[in-house]
């Protein structure tokens, strides 16, 4: 199914997760279109960039 479409790639799986979670909370927590886009962008950037930052910090550890 979906896994067949997505290669086993940590970044892509994380990106899909961020996309789904950001869309969900933007629709749930905000009323207007503008506010929804703003929250979506904030959450998306936080999840993707935060994930990359944590991965980079953990890189030296086995």
């Amino acid at each position: 199914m979906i896994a067949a479409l997505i290669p086993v790639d940590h970044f892509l799986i994380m990106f899909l997760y961020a996309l789904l979670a950001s869309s969900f909370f933007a629709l749930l927590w905000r009323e207007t279109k503008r506010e929804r886009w703003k929250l979506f962008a904030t959450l998306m950037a936080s999840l993707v960039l935060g994930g990359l930052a944590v991965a980079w910090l953990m890189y030296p550890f086995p």
Partner: protein
Amino acid sequence: MRETTSGGEARAPRRNPIAAAALAWVFPGLGHWYLGKRRLAIAFAVIVTVTFLAGLSFEGRLYTVESGQPLTILATFAVYGAGVLNIAARFLADSPGGTILSPTYEYGCAYLLTGGLMNLLLVLDAWDIASGRKR
């Protein structure tokens, strides 16, 4: 039919909160559909269903309560939040317990738990809208 507030804003007619919450649990977005929020209902149905199916595709685990593993109680509660999706998956999935050796197993578990928890938030949201706490 829509009611109008004193400020002239359109408001969804008051519905039964228990029915709204129950429908929201049965299938993602169904509670919002019942409350007249059709476009939002479709969006929620797509997002939660894709999240849950992705979890199954990534060979995650549909948790069950295990003795001596208290955290499985919380995980089971979260996965059962997905309603019919979870119940159907338990019957139809090749390996409901997940494939622990799969490289995507942990991702699958995270997606399945997230799908269930998202739907539980939709249950609470439908309850709030139906009871007039939220527009």
